[in-house]
C-alpha cells in the first residue's frame, strides 16, 4: 500500500497503516468510533480488517450485534453488511475481543521451557490472580495480543480499542514496564532466600520488613511464582521489547478520541502531549458527540430569545393558522426557545474547549451528536461517514 505523506482524512490515514490504536478517556465513544472506523475501512478500503476490543464490558459485541465472541477472531457476516445497505463491501470485517486470562495462558505456553513448568505456572495462585484480575495485566496483554495478531499476518488493518485504564496511556508503556519488572533488582532480591536459603546480612532487614507485613508464606508464593516465571524471562523480555517497538513503528498510528466536555478534553491534551513527546505516531483526533453547529449561531440565539419574549403574542398569531389552544402554543414556543438557549450555552462551552485544544494532529474530525443509539453495523457506518473523509 502506498504511504500517504500527509494524511488529510481518516480514510487516507487508515489506507496507509496496518495498526490504528484508538485511545481516549472513558465514555467518549472510543469503542464505537474504533468499530465504525474498522467497518468503514472494510467497506471502502478493502482487505481484511480486524477490530480488536480489549474492554472487559463486552461493548463491542453489542455494537456489532455479535453475541459473546471471544479471543478468537470472528468474521462479521456479509449478511450484516447487506442489512446495513452495503451488500458489496470491498473487504472483510473481523472482530475479536481480548480474553485476558486466555491470552496470558497462551503466553505462558509459548515461553515456558517444558510442559511441567507450564502446568506449575498455570496452577500458581498468584499467577491466577495476576492473569485474571490484575488491572495492569490487561494493558500489557492487550498490546501483546495486538503484536501476536499483527505478526500472524492475517489482517491488512488492525483497529484497536484500548482498555479503560487509570492512566489512559498506561498501555503504551506497559510492554516496557513489564520488561523492566521482570529484570528488577528487587525481584532477584526477593527470590534469593527461597532459592539458596542463604540470606546475606545486608539484605536481612528487607526480608524482615517484608515478612512482618505480608507473612512469609505469601512471600514464598511470590518467590515461587517468580522463580517459575524466570524460566520464561528471556523470551518474555524479548517479546515485550518487540511489542514496544511495534507501537512506535511507522505502520502504527494513534487516534485520540474525545468529547468536548472539560475532563475528557483535559485528558486528550495530556495524551496528545505524551504521544507527541514520546514520538509515537499520533495522526488523528476525533471530536465526538459535538452539538450541531447551529447552536453556536448568535443570530439564531437572538431569535430564540425573541421567541420566548414574544411567546404570548406569537402564539395568538400561530393559533390563527393552526387552530390550537393559544396557551398551549405559547408553552411550546417558550420551550423551543428556552431549549435552544440551553443547548446554546453547552455549545459555547464546547467551542471554548475546542479552541483550547491547541496542539492538534494532522487529521481532525468532528462527529456530531447522534441523538439515537448506535447498535448495529448500519449505525456504525453512518457514524463513520461523518469522520471518514
Amino acid at each position: 500500500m502506498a504511504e500517504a505523506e500527509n494524511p488529510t482524512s481518516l480514510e487516507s490515514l487508515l489506507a496507509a497503516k496496518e495498526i490504528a490504536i484508538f485511545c481516549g478517556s472513558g465514555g467518549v465513544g472510543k469503542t464505537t468510533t474504533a468499530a465504525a472506523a474498522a467497518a468503514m475501512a472494510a467497506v471502502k478500503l478493502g482487505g481484511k480488517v480486524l477490530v480488536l476490543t480489549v474492554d472487559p464490558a463486552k461493548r463491542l459485541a453489542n455494537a456489532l450485534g455479535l453475541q459473546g465472541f471471544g479471543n478468537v477472531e470472528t468474521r462479521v457476516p456479509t449478511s450484516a453488511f447487506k442489512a446495513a445497505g452495503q451488500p458489496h463491501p470491498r473487504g472483510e470485517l473481523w472482530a475479536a475481543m481480548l480474553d485476558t486470562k486466555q491470552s496470558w495462558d497462551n503466553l505462558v505456553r509459548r515461553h515456558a521451557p517444558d510442559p511441567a513448568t507450564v502446568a506449575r505456572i498455570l496452577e500458581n495462585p498468584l499467577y491466577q490472580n495476576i492473569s485474571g484480575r490484575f488491572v495492569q495485566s490487561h494493558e500489557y496483554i492487550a498490546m501483546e495480543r495486538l503484536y501476536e495478531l499483527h505478526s500472524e499476518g492475517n489482517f491488512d488493518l488492525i483497529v484497536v480499542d484500548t482498555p479503560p485504564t487509570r492512566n489512559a496511556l498506561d498501555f503504551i508503556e506497559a510492554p516496557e514496564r513489564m520488561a523492566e519488572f521482570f529484570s528488577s533488582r528487587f525481584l532477584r532480591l526477593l527470590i534469593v532466600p527461597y532459592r539458596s536459603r542463604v540470606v546475606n546480612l545486608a539484605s536481612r532487614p528487607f526480608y524482615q520488613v517484608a515478612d512482618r507485613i505480608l507473612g512469609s508464606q505469601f512471600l514464598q508464593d511470590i518467590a515461587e511464582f517468580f522463580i517459575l516465571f524466570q524460566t520464561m524471562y528471556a523470551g518474555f523480555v524479548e517479546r515485550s521489547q518487540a511489542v514496544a517497538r511495534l507501537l512506535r513503528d511507522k505502520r502504527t498510528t494513534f487516534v485520540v478520541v474525545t468529547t468536548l466536555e472539560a475532563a475528557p478534553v483535559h485528558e486528550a491534551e495530556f495524551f496528545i502531549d505524551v504521544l507527541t513527546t514520546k514520538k509515537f505516531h499520533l495522526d488523528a483526533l476525533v471530536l465526538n458527540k459535538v452539538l450541531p453547529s447551529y447552536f453556536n449561531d448568535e443570530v439564531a440565539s437572538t431569535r430564540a430569545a425573541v421567541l420566548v419574549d414574544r411567546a404570548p403574542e406569537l402564539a395568538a398569531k400561530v393559533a390563527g393558522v393552526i387552530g390550537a389552544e393559544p396557551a398551549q402554543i405559547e408553552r411550546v414556543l417558550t420551550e423551543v426557545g428556552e431549549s435552544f438557549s440551553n443547548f446554546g450555552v453547552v455549545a459555547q462551552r464546547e467551542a471554548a474547549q475546542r479552541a483550547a485544544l491547541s496542539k492538534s494532529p494532522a487529521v481532525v474530525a468532528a462527529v456530531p451528536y447522534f441523538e439515537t443509539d448506535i447498535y448495529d453495523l448500519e449505525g456504525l457506518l453512518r457514524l463513520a461517514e461523518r469522520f471518514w473523509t
Partner: protein
Amino acid sequence: MPPQDNLNLLDRKLVFVTGKGGVGKTSVTAALGLLAAERGKKTLLCEVDSKGNLSDFFETGPTHFEEREVQPNLWAMSMDTEASLKQYLTLQLKLGLMARIGPLARMFDFVATAAPGVKEIVTVGKLCWEVRERHYDLVVVDAAPTGHIVGQLAAPQAINGLIQVGPVRQQTGWMLEILGDPAMTGVAIVTTPEEMPVNETIELQGRIKAETNVALAAVIINRVLPELFGRGEEEVFEQLGDREVLDMLEGEVGGPVAPLLDGARMAVTLRRTRTEHLDRLRERIEPGIPLLYLPYLFARSHGLRSTRQLAEALSAELGF
C-alpha cells in the same frame, strides 16, 4: 442485601461512588459531599483514581493525601497508596521506623505490582480506618470506575485468600466488618440514561452481589434531560414546521426559525432514546434500591456553581 427503605444514602458512614467513565462520577461525588456537609455532617471526600479533577468542582487547588477543608465541614484528599502504607505502618503497627526505611517505596511498588490486591487493600484500608476512628461522620469515595471497582471492594477477601498470616491478614477482618455492614457502607452507581452506562450498571449490580460483601445503596441517574413537551404539545410543535406557520414566525422574529425547531427536535429525540434506557434500568435494578435522578445541567462550566446545583437536586431526590 437491599438497604432498608428508611436508611438514607447519607446516613451511612462510607459511600463508594462508581460508574462508567464519563458519566459524571466525580461531580456527583462532589455534590454528595457538599450536601452532606451542608446538612451538618463532617465529611471527607476521597479521590481514589488520581485524575485530580475533584478539586475543580470546588475550585480549589489540587488535593493531596493530607486532607484539607475545601468547604465548611467538607474535607478532601486524594489517595496515595504509598503514603497510606506509611501511615498504616506508623499508626497501626507502630512501626514508624520501618516507614522511614529508604527502599520501602520501591519495595512496596514492586510487591504491589506483583501481588494483586495490595494497592487496593491499602486504599480500602485507609478509608475503613477513617470510618473506624470516627474522624468523620461520612466518607464519600470517588472510587474506581465500573470495570475496576469490584477488584477494589473485594480486595480484603482476595488478600485473605492469598495471605495466610501476618498483620495484613489480621487487618482484613475488621475491614470486612465495616464493608459488609449495609448500615455503614454502601455503593452508589452513577449512570447516565444511555445504553452502555446502563448496561454496565446492570452488570455491576450483579457483580457487586456475587463478588463482594458490600451493599448496593443507590443508583444515581445523572444528566436526565428535561421533557420539552407535555400532552398534545408535540402535535402543536410538529405544526410549527408547516410552511405557512414557519413563514409567519420567520417574518416576526426576523430570520430562519428552522434551526430552532431542529434544536428542539434533537432535544426531544435525545430524551426519547434515553427514556428507553431508563425503563430498562428501572426494570433491572432490584426493588428497594433507590433510584435518584439528577438533571442535565446546561451550565457554562463545571465549577462550584454546578456542584451546588447538583447538590440541590440530590437534596430533593433524597427527600430533604
